[in-house]
């Protein structure tokens, strides 16, 4: 469960069914379990008007059968978030008002899918989100602007410019990443030990 710290750190909820008849559910890894939990309270016909996009990551086929059994109108299983994005953007570009989004799983998935949604004018507060599974972070280095994926340590090294960064809780929806700031600017010879923090 993601812990609430500062106000810009996103707070995720629990997926709940929204009105309308066009539902797009996107999940990675353990996020599938959130969709299965949601299904316990959806009205009849909910999934007949729904599309499920699933990226199993390390969970193999643990959740696939159960998700397919919901009989969504459309089903896609992909190897990674990056691979799924072009399809998602196309879907959003041609969608109509009334489409509702449900995002579940890692913050990286939630953040990147939300970014694609914001770009077509969907307001973030209408998007349902639920965090499940790994708490590894996407981090933007404030110095070189490069994004480092799957950060689990505090501090963490920028994979682009090499600076050692404090991984802050300050989060940008627009960039879909946490902010990393040089942790040893005042004395670059001091390199604090990296501890596993975001699992």
């Amino acid at each position: 469960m993601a812990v609430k710290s500062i106000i810009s750190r996103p707070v995720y909820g629990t997926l709940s069914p929204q009105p309308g008849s066009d539902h797009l559910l996107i999940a990675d890894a353990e996020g599938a379990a959130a969709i299965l939990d949601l299904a316990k309270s959806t009205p009849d016909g909910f999934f007949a008007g729904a599309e499920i996009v699933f990226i199993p990551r390390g969970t193999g086929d643990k959740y696939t059968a159960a998700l397919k059994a919901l009989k969504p109108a459309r089903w896609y299983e992909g190897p990674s978030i990056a691979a799924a994005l072009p399809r998602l953007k196309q879907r959003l570009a041609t969608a109509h008002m009334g489409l509702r989004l449900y995002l579940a799983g890692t913050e990286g998935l939630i953040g990147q899918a939300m970014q694609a949604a914001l770009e077509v004018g969907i307001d973030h507060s209408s998007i349902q989100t639920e965090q499940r599974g790994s708490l590894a972070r996407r981090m933007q280095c404030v110095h070189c602007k490069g994004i480092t994926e799957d950060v689990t340590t505090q501090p963490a090294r920028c994979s682009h410019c090499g600076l050692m960064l404090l991984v802050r809780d300050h989060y940008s929806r627009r960039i879909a990443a946490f902010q990393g700031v040089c942790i040893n600017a005042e004395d670059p010879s001091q390199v604090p030990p990296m501890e596993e923090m975001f699992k």
Partner: protein
Amino acid sequence: MGINFRDETFRDDFTFSNSPEHIRRFPFPFHEDSYMYAVNIEPHVPGPKGSVLENLIDVDEHYVSEMRDRALVLAEDPLRCQSLPHMTLAGWDLLELLMTEQAKGYPEHFSLTRDGDNWHWINRPLGLDQKFVFGDLTTLPYGPMEYITRQSQGDFCILDQRDGNLWMDAGIVTTQADWSLDFDIGMNFFEWHAPVPLAHEKGIFTRALKFLSNIQQGKPARRLNWTMTINPRLDTSPENYHKWGPDRTTVTPENVGQKVHLRVELQSFWRLPRSNAMVFPIRCYLIKMDELVTSKKWARRLHRVIRDLPEELATYKGLTLYRPTLVEWLARYDDGAETSPGFGPD
């Protein structure tokens, strides 16, 4: 008459300093001997002649040098000036506001003539003479916000008002105290203030948002904020933190007077007419300790404020490393006498 513009630097050799008149007009932010956050907002109306409040948009002797430093920052990092697509109209609103206020307050330096949408702007200190069509992007060398803020002192945040909140959807930030426009653009009022300690629990931001959201055309408001900087560096951005952060370790008892600067931000809040957006100009004023202690009252008061500042505030404002050295230095100027109430130097 006009202003005697200085030729000085805010980086490298740091030749910045204040003339005696500018020391006296410095917006000292402490009206009592201790400091805690408050929603210290008041109407932004013209103040005493010669003060930083005489004109609602203040141009001072550092204008030309500050604009030169801004141009250098933008050349190194264009992401310091951004405007989300829906904010262009607000950018035109800001252009009108700054041109009219600067021309009104300093007619010897700026002129604006308007014939319908055909405008003619002259900026003598920067040597600019620009004819353009108001509302037509192709007639200016930059977008309207960037065009005019390259000619106005201070940072500017333009906020879209919607869903009961204010959203930082455009801005130019080259003189700020340690936050990143590129990271924060798109955030709402509570989100971009998230890193500020203590204030959230006190409900300060909720009250401030309510007040600011109801500011109407023709009735701007203002408040003061403060921090400290080592060397008169305007660009103390997180982007360059690894370059200026080390400055904080270079303070010695001998160089406090020259290196340590009080940095005051005069923030104002204006409603923009065509876009219904809000603009927050953040005007930065710097004074080194040697200059500040020429006022006995300010010396005493600053000593007490910094000495007694709560730990979280000192950390957030970046004072931790040199606070002891600074307090010891200021103590020499504090004879324990009473300070008069109010901000003035006496």
